[in-house]
């Protein structure tokens, strides 16, 4: 077993090493640090996942102090899945950066990327509310830096917007934490869960729940707090958009569901939240219809999908959670793939305008095939994994007797099909006579992700049974989480 503390310590050491290595003129080495660190995180998170499958939730106290007084890590199955996704995203992004920018990126970029990994891992593994806030801040600050990395006006604008909105979110989160602390006298998540279970009528608890809804809603890109997302995804470098859409948004969702399922389970107005989230999805999908910029389009599409994922976690059923986790995995892989491929297109055409991409599918068949598979998966067509995600979600929805949400999901899928197939139409319609050289890095990275997506499409029921069902079950049984820290 890998000590989960290492998952946080190693990126931290990596982040310190980068400027050190640069200072002693080993800049060549420093470029590989992100790659190595994220590979380590990926492997150890997978190992940790299997370990947790056998032992149940793993509680690690840091520096020997037991939970009420010390800080502890709570390694859950879902947390491991999120770390796997995050480290995969960072790995793929760094792999892509290694090839696509021979001289760049600079140290700052690498440090920020590694801090993103660190923060996300921390959020997913921590068992302490205040720790979560600290990690959230680390992640957010790294994300602000990365989204403003392209110094071309739009990047700075987006970064600034993100900074404003994100810091408001952090403030709300902090306020929520403070309010909870005044009532429960502890910051340990398991303790808080135990406390809030019997004190849900306490108006202060309810008020802090609202603070968390707003704060985490901003971080997890949940409607109606996700206005900043399209700007950021559009302006960030392609490999970073890939991490944002694929992994960081999932970390935000993790924080949201950890707090709302484990701590505030059973707060009132669940129904209102469900409809709010779904209407938000519908609006985001509708907004995607009008986008002329491909990155912005997929940003809106992400918002739509995130709405469904959150909806699945609001279902209060183990099979709903399972569907949500499956969807989350599927969406993470597809969005990483798509943004990486967009990076490849951008290198060739130096534009992200959809209209200018006419005919590239015919000029570069491999890119066309990869993109088409990505789009078909996103659109939820069989035999790809997106279909199974939709299937599991609809099944859970109907078993919960939600009929109108199911119709909203179906309508949103229809809108999705409209803009996604319009993209295929653009890609394969005549145009663009001259041949472009698409970066092999983007295609090679795409291949890795396509293999994962196809793997998920071939054995969806196995994945559901072996991984998502188990993770959902451990999320559903709150007592398991609480018991760990008695």
């Amino acid at each position, binding site marked *: 077993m890998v000590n989960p503390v290492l998952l946080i310590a190693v990126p931290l050491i990596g982040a310190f090493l980068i400027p050190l290595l640069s200072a002693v003129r080993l800049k060549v080495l420093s470029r590989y640090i992100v790659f190595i660190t994220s590979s380590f995180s990926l492997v150890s998170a997978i190992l940790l996942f299997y370990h947790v499958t056998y032992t149940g939730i793993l509680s690690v106290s840091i520096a020997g102090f037991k939970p009420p007084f010390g800080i502890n890590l709570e390694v859950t199955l879902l947390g491991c899945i999120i770390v796997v996704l995050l480290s995969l995203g960072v790995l793929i992004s760094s792999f892509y950066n290694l090839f696509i920018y021979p001289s760049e990126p600079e140290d700052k970029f690498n440090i920020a990327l590694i801090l993103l990994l660190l923060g996300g891992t921390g959020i997913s593994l921590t068992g302490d509310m205040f720790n979560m806030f600290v990690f959230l801040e680390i992640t957010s600050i790294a994300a602000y830096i990365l989204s403003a990395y392209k110094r071309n006006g739009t990047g700075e604008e987006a970064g*600034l*917007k993100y900074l*404003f*909105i994100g810091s*408001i979110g952090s403030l*709300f989160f902090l306020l929520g934490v403070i309010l909870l602390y005044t009532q429960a006298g502890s910051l340990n998540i398991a303790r808080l869960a135990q406390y809030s279970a019997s004190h849900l*009528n306490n*108006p202060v608890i*309810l*008020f802090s729940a*609202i603070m968390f*809804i*707003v704060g985490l809603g*901003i971080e997890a890109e949940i409607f*109606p*707090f996700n*206005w*900043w997302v*399209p*700007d950021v995804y559009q302006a960030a470098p392609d490999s970073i958009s890939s991490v944002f859409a694929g992994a960081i948004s999932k970390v935000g969702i993790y924080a949201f569901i950890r707090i709302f399922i484990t701590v505030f389970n059973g707060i*009132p*107005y669940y129904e*209102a939240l469900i409809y709010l989230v779904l209407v938000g999805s519908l*609006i985001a999908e*509708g*907004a995607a*219809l*009008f986008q002329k910029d491909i990155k912005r389009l997929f940003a809106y599409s992400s918002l739509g999908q995130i709405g469904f994922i959150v909806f699945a976690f609001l279902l209060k059923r183990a099979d709903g959670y399972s569907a949500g986790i499956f969807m989350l995995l599927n969406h993470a892989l597809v969005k990483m793939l798509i943004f990486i491929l967009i990076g490849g297109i951008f290198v060739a055409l130096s534009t992200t305008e959809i209209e200018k991409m006419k005919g590239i599918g*015919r000029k570069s068949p491999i890119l066309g095939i990869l993109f088409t598979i990505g789009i*078909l998966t996103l*659109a939820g*067509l*069989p*035999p790809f994994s997106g*279909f199974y995600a939709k*299937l599991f979600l*609809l*099944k859970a929805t*109907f078993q919960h*007797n939600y*009929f109108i949400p*199911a*119709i909203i999901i*179906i309508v949103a*899928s*229809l809108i999705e*099909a*409209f803009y996604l*197939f*319009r993209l*295929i*139409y653009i890609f*394969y*319609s*005549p145009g663009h006579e001259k041949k472009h050289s698409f970066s092999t890095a983007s295609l090679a990275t795409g291949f890795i992700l396509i293999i994962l997506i196809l793997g998920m499409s071939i054995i969806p*029921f*196995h994945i*559901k*049974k072996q991984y998502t069902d188990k993770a959902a079950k451990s999320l559903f049984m709150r007592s398991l989480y609480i018991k760990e820290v008695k």
Partner: protein
Amino acid sequence: MNFTIGHLILVIVGAGIITAIVTKFNRLSGSITALLLSIGIAFVCFYPAFHILPISFTTGDYTFIFNLSTLSRFFLMLFSGMFPLVIMATVSTKPKAHYYFFFYLILASVIGTISSQDLLSFFFFFELMTLFSYLLVIYKKRAIKAGLVYILMGIIGGLSLLLGIFYVFWLSKDFRISVEILKGSYATLFLLSLPFLIKMAAMPVHIWAPDTYKESEDVYTAFLSGVLSKLGIYGLIFFWFTWGIYGLSAWGKVFDVPVTGYIIAWIGAITAFIGAVYALLSEDVKKLLAYSSISQLGYILVGFGIMSSLGWAGALYHTLTHTIFKTMLFIVVAGIIFRLNTTKLSEMGGLIKKMPVSFLTLLVGIIALAGVPPTMGFASKYLIYSALFEKKLFLLTAVVFAASTAAFLYAYRLIHNIFLGPLKTSLKNTKEAPLPFLIPSLILSLFLVMFGFFPGVPLEWINNILMSLGMKSIASTFTTISTSLGGFNGLLSSSIFISIFGIIFILYLILFPKAKWVNDKNTFTAGEVMHNTDLLTYSSHFYRFLEREFGLLIKLSVKKLYDNILGIFEWMFDVARKLLYHGNVNGYVWAIILVTLTFVISFLIGGLR
């Protein structure tokens, strides 16, 4: 020898992969491989000593069941029998590797669809078929726009099917097909019928068909229109039968027909009529056939909607007839387009001497289309009309009859504009279509005539289906069909029909012994010298007088209506987008505060209560 449906599907996918690999190296040997493998697959499906066994497997709480019912066996024969004939026609067009790959995948998913006996695998394979079919439609660059409409309509159908399936699941807590479906409401019936109406291109949802049929690859159009559209009638029978005709009757009856069926019959009749009108006004040969296909599938819907055993027999019989003649017509036309490189009717004319075999097969095809003996088209029209008369649906009959009249007109236009009249000067050097086009069309026209003489042979299979669905069978022998309203002898009527023509021909030889061939220009110019003989061909706007009559009908366009509806939705989304995602940080901060306040107030009100 025994094997399961799973094996059959895997073998077909394997055949597709092999063909694709061979085609990658050499186009011609790839085509031949495709042909041989498809003949092998057809043999496997047809040979009685091979038993195709059911298969079912369970993963988690999902059970997938595949089994061939009598109904699906009929469609299996239809699909696997037509497949090699269509593949044969592709040989001279030398398509690329992925063309064959997708073609085989379509066959595999079609067989998966017709053998699924649970809702989920039905949906899975049905969507798969739509997807692969789309990928094959956009094989031609020109079809990319038509393909977009095709896949979007397919997805609308698919999502409607999915919702319907989940509605049934909601009621019965199971994806298996059971009597629980009976509890379903009008909504379920609508949701579960819409995808098949789309697939059959019934009138309000036909908008994908004309352009897709026109733009897609010429030989694939034959399969798409002739064969794949029949999945629609399969799906309708599959789901409606499960409801049970008696279950449907519980919702009321009109003229002794369940009201839902009556609506379907009217949709079919209107489709048949308007489709035929559009067909006779088309200036493009593939578009003409496309509208003709829409129109003919309307007849099938009429037969289906009557919901009597005679009606369903007529629907299934016409399914067979239409599959054969429409596949054949599209293959013949594909051969002509292959030689002429144009689809415009105005650029054809006078090809009868250059392409005699194509002419002959097309003639048989349009005779079958018109429903005249000695082809099997007569039997299917006979059954549908008998079903209409049996229930005394005279208004419906009148509309269907008008559609048949229009069918005569466009069938005549087809043969006149392509083959008759003086030869265009630009077509002087045209040769007969290559053999790969002629052989399948000859085989198919042979079937059309043969079943015209022996109409009872297909009816025997159809009777088996009707009995397996618990309906009365139609009394028949090899050569006769008899219904409650009378009957006919196919051998006799066809023989009489042919002998009348023979007698007239002999009389002509006897009465006008001095008749001689004149140059066809003479009949037009009355002996004057004419230099530009191309002007003599009268083919563009052939039915101008009807164009004037139907002017209003042509102007009406469902597409515009859909565009307007979409426009309204787009406007709504645009307003929502501009309100919410406006890009102004100040606004966002205010909105966050506002939303938070709303939450707080609502929580407070809730908490105080």
